[in-house]
C-alpha cells in the first residue's frame, strides 16, 4: 500500500524501556542517522543509576529523548510527538511527556499481567481508555522478533535482545530514513560473532518491512535537512567533545596529556575516550582514589605535562585540598567537574548545576581559580580547549564545569580543522634575563615561568607553605603573605584581559528582562528567549562561558536591562555571585529536580516578568 508523505519541521521522540533493553543504543543510532541525513538534533539520555535495575519496574526505566528537525534545534524538546514504550513501566513513566494527540508505539508483550503489576497499574492502560487522546500503534515486538529469527539457531535470550532493532527499523520506515549507517554499525559491533550480525540486520529489516506492509499508518513523515551553516558536521556527545578538546590542547601546547582520574558517573566516559587515543601520547592513569587522581596530575604538571583530572561533585570534594596545593604552587592543570545531583551521592545519573559555589569556594584559604562552563555537548570542545589555554598560559589550575545533561547529550558539531586552532604558549625561563632561576618571578600578567625537572640550573623547591615573593623560599612574613594572596587573586583577575568581551547571545541588546545563564541551560534559555523576543518582549539572553573571571563588560551589559533573571538548576548559586559582585537585585529561576528546564518553564517566567 502506498503511503502519503507528511512534512514535519521538528519531531521529538522518547525511546523507553528496561535498562537492559538497549534503549540508549537505539536512541543513539536513530540520532546518528538523522544527523547524517542533515537534521539538527539534540538528545537527552535519562537512565537509572543501577546497571540492571529490577526488570519491568518503574525504577528501572531507561529513556532516550531526542529532537530532530529541519530547523534549528537547541533542546531535546519539552514534550514528545512520539513515545516508544517497550513495557508498561516505561509507558507509565513517560506518558506525561507525550503531547495531546501524540503517537504511542507500544510493545504489547510488555503489558502482560506481571508487567502491569510491576508498573503498579490496576487496569491495562492499552484497554482502559488511557490512550483515547493519543494515536496508538500496538505491536507485539517480542513475537515479531522471535518470528524473524525462528531459524537463526540463537537462544531466546539472544533473540529477545535484538527487539530494539525491530523498533528502530520501524521508525526508520516511518521517518523515511536510510538504514545504511546502522547496518554498518551492527557489522562493526558484532564483528566477532557473524550470527549476531545476521540476526540484528534481519530484525532491523523486519521492523522496516513490517511498517511498510502493515497498515499501521497511512502517511510517512519527512523531516528535511536543516539549514545549518555550511561546512562539515559530525554528531558528538559532551564527554567525547571534552576528551577531543584535551587532546587538541595537548597537541597545540606541545605538551603530552596526562589524565589522572578515578571512575565516577557521569565523568568516566572522558577516561574511556582518552584511553582509546594512546597513539597521541595520551597517558591515562586510573588512580586508587580521587585524591590520588589529582595528586598524580600535580606530579605530571610539575614534570611539564598537561595534567588533567575529572570527577563529579563528590570526587571534587575529595580533591579540594590538592587543588588548593595546585593554586599555591601555581602549576597549570585542569579540573573537570561533570556535575550531577547532590549533595553527597545524590542523584548520580541525573543532572544539576549545584557545584558552582564549590568551584568558586571549595578550598581552604583564599584560593581563587578561573572557572569555565560548557553550554552544550559540542561546546565542551572549545571550552575545555580554552580552559587548557588559560591553565598553561597563566600557570594556574582551572575549573571546567560540565554536567550530566551535556556530558551524555549529543548534537551536530561543525568540527574545526587542527590548523585553525590557536597555539598554546607556556612561559619558559630565559636564563639570559635571570641567570639564577627564581621560581616566583613574574611577568606583567603575574605569571611565573614553568621550569621542569631535567632543566640544568633550574633546580628549585616549591611547596604548599606560603612562599616569599620572587624567590619562592618559605616565608611567614605577614606583609609577604598578604602580598602573595593579592598576587594570586590579581593573576586570576588579569585573565579577563585575554578573554573575549561578552555578547548578548540572543534577543534584545537592552530592555526589560535579561536572562543570564551559564552551563547546560543554554539551549532552553535560547529557545525561550527567541520565542519571547519574536512575540515582541524586550528580552535578551547572555550566556556565560567564563564565570571566573567574568568578561570585563558584563556589568555594562547587565546595566542595560531593567530586570535580571538567572535560571539555574540549583538554588541560586550564580545568583549569589552576581548579586555580590554587581550589587544588583537579580532574581533566580531555580529547578532542582535532576532534570533540565523545559523551554516553556523559562518562557513562562519571562512572560510573568513583563506581564
Amino acid at each position: 500500500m502506498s503511503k502519503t508523505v507528511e512534512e514535519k519541521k521538528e519531531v521529538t521522540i522518547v525511546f523507553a524501556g528496561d535498562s537492559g533493553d538497549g534503549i540508549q543504543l537505539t536512541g543513539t543510532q536513530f540520532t546518528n542517522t538523522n544527523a547524517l541525513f542533515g537534521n539538527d538534533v539534540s538528545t537527552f539520555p535519562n537512565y537509572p543509576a543501577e546497571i540492571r535495575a529490577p526488570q519491568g519496574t518503574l525504577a528501572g526505566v531507561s529513556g532516550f529523548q531526542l529532537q530532530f528537525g529541519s530547523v534549528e534545534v537547541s533542546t531535546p524538546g519539552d514534550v514528545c510527538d512520539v513515545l516508544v514504550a517497550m513495557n508498561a513501566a516505561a509507558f507509565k513513566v513517560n506518558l506525561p511527556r507525550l503531547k495531546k494527540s501524540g503517537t504511542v508505539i507500544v510493545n504489547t508483550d510488555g503489558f502482560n499481567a506481571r508487567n502491569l503489576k510491576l508498573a503498579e497499574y490496576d487496569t491495562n492502560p492499552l484497554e482502559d481508555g488511557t490512550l483515547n487522546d493519543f494515536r496508538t500503534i500496538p505491536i507485539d515486538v517480542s513475537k515479531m522478533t522471535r518470528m524473524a529469527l525462528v531459524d537463526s539457531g540463537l537462544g531466546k535470550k539472544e533473540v529477545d535482545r535484538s527487539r530494539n532493532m525491530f523498533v528502530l527499523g520501524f521508525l526508520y520506515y516511518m521517518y523515511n530514513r536510510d538504514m545504511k549507517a546502522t547496518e554498518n554499525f551492527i557489522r562493526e559491533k558484532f564483528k566477532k560473532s557473524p550470527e549476531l550480525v545476521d540476526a540484528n540486520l534481519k530484525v532491523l529489516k523486519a521492523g522496516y518491512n513490517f511498517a511498510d506492509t502493515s497498515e499501521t499508518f497511512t502517511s510517512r513523515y519527512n523531516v528535511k535537512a536543516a539549514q545549518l551553516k555550511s561546512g562539515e558536521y559530525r554528531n558528538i556527545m559532551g564527554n567525547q567533545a571534552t576528551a577531543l578538546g584535551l587532546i587538541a590542547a595537548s597537541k597545540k601546547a606541545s605538551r603530552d596529556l596526562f589524565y589522572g582520574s578515578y571512575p565516577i558517573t557521569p565523568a568516566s566516559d572522558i577516561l574511556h575516550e582518552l584511553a582509546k587515543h594512546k597513539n597521541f601520547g595520551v597517558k591515562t592513569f586510573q588512580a586508587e582514589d580521587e585524591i590520588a587522581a589529582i595528586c598524580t596530575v600535580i606530579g605530571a604538571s610539575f614534570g611539564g605535562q598537561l595534567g588533567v583530572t575529572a570527577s563529579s561533585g563528590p570526587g571534587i570534594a575529595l580533591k579540594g585540598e590538592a587543588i588548593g596545593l595546585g593554586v599555591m604552587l601555581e602549576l597549570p592543570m585542569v579540573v573537570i567537574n561533570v556535575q550531577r545531583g547532590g549533595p553527597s551521592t545524590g542523584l548520580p545519573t541525573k543532572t544539576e548545576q549545584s557545584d558552582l559555589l564549590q568551584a568558586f569556594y571549595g578550598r581552604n584559604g583564599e584560593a581563587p581559580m578561573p572557572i569555565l562552563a560548557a553550554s552544550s555537548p559540542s561546546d565542551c570542545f572549545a571550552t575545555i580547549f580554552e580552559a587548557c589555554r588559560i591553565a598553561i598560559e597563566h600557570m594556574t589550575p582551572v575549573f571546567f564545569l560540565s554536567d550530566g545533561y551535556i556530558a551524555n547529550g549529543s548534537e551536530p558539531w561543525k568540527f574545526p580543522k587542527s590548523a585553525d586552532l590557536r597555539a598554546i604558549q607556556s612561559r619558559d625561563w630565559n636564563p639570559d634575563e635571570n641567570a639564577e632561576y627564581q621560581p616566583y618571578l613574574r611577568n606583567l600578567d603575574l605569571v611565573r615561568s614553568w621550569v621542569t625537572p631535567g632543566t640544568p640550573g633550574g633546580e628549585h623547591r616549591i611547596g604548599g607553605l606560603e612562599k616569599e615573593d620572587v624567590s619562592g623560599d618559605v616565608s611567614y612574613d605577614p606583609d609577604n603573605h598578604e602580598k602573595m594572596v593579592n598576587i594570586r587573586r590579581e593573576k586570576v583577575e588579569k585573565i579577563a584581559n585575554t578573554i573575549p568581551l561578552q555578547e548578548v547571545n540572543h534577543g534584545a541588546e537592552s530592555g526589560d528582562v535579561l536572562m543570564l545563564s551559564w552551563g547546560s541551560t543554554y539551549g532552553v534559555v535560547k529557545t525561550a528567549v527567541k520565542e519571547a523576543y519574536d512575540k515582541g518582549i524586550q528580552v535578551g539572553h547572555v550566556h556565560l562561558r567564563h564565570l571566573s573571571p567574568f568578561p570585563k563588560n558584563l556589568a555594562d551589559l547587565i546595566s542595560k536591562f531593567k530586570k535580571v533573571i538567572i535560571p539555574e538548576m540549583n538554588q541560586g548559586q550564580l545568583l549569589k555571585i552576581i548579586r555580590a559582585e554587581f550589587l544588583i537585585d537579580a532574581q533566580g529561576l531555580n529547578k532542582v529536580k535532576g532534570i533540565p528546564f523545559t523551554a516553556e518553564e523559562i518562557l513562562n517566567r519571562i512572560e510573568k516578568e513583563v506581564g
Partner: protein
Amino acid sequence: MKTADQNGQLTAKDFSTDQDVRWCPGCGDYSILKQVQSIMPEIGRKKEDIVFISGIGCSSRFPYYMDTYGMHSIHGRATAIASGLKSSRPDLSVWVITGDGDALSIGGNHLIHMLRRNFDLNVLLFNNEIYGLTKGQYSPTSPEGKVTKSTPIGSIDHPFNPLKLCLGADATFVARTMDRDPKHQREILLKGSQHVGTSMIEIYQNCNVFNDGAFEIFTDKQSKAEETLMLEDGQPLVFGAENDKGIRLDGGQPTIVSLNDYSKDDLWIHNEKDKFKAQLLTSFFDNPSVEGHLPRPFGVFYIEDRYRYEDAMAEQLEFAKEQKGEGDLDAILRGRNVWKVEA
C-alpha cells in the same frame, strides 16, 4: 647553582641549599640528610634529573635542604604525586620523603597502591613512632599502651608493622636501617638507589623531643648487638654480643639457638630473593621487653625484579602508535560519520 669540585665531580656539598635546616637540635633527621647528600654524587644521576617529593611532617621539610628539584606537598600525598611524576617522566630519579603518620596513616592508601605498581623510585620512611610536628600525639606505629598527649592513659591502637604491610602490598625492595648507624644507612640507601623498582626503606629515626629513646634498645652500644639482627645476603642469621646466637628455622618456626649447640651451617641463610622467608623476617617484630623475643632485623629483607608501571605505560603508548600510527588530530576531530552542508 653550586659548582663541582676540581675534578668536575659533584660532592655532598653541591646538594645542600642555602636554607637553614630547622629540625630540633639532636633530631635524627640530620643524620639522614647528611647520608642522603653524601650518596647523591654516587648514584650516577645528574643533579637536574633528581627530584625529592615529601608530604607533611617534620621529615617532609627535607626537600628544602636538597639542591635538586623538589616539592613539599600535602599530608600523605607525596607517594601519589611521585606516582604521577614518574609515570609522566620516567627519565627522572625520584625520591619520596615521608614519615610514619604521612605514609601509614593519612597516606596509607597511596602507599600500598604505589608499591603494587612498582614505579622505579625510592621511598625513605622516617619512622619515629610519634607525631612530632603537631607536638606529640601517638602515630600508627606507636606501641600499644604508649602514653602521649592524645593518649594520657595509653594508646589502645594496635600498631602497624610497616615492612610487613609493604611486603603485603608486593613491594619489590624492602629494607630497614637506623639514623644512629650512618654506615649501615649509607649502604642501604645506595642499595635502594640501585634497585630498579620501588625501594622501600624504613629508617628508625629518633625524635628526641617527643619520643626520645624509642629505638634506643636497637641503637645503644650496650644492647644493639643482642637486640638487632643485621641481614646480609647469603649469610647465616647470627647475632649477639659475642656473635654467639643464631636463628634457625624449626619447621616453619624461627627459633633462637646458641652457636655452642649448633654450627652456622644449621642456621637460616638469608636470601634476599626469597619472598616467603622475607615475610617471616618482617614478622620479627616482637616487643623487646618480652621474654624470649626475636631480635629486630636491619638490612635488605627482600628484592624482586618486577616490571615497572611507567615502563609498561610507555610500551602501551608505543604499541598504540604501531597499531594506529602517530595520532592524527584532524582524523579524530572528523570522526567516522561526517556530512556536508552546502552553502
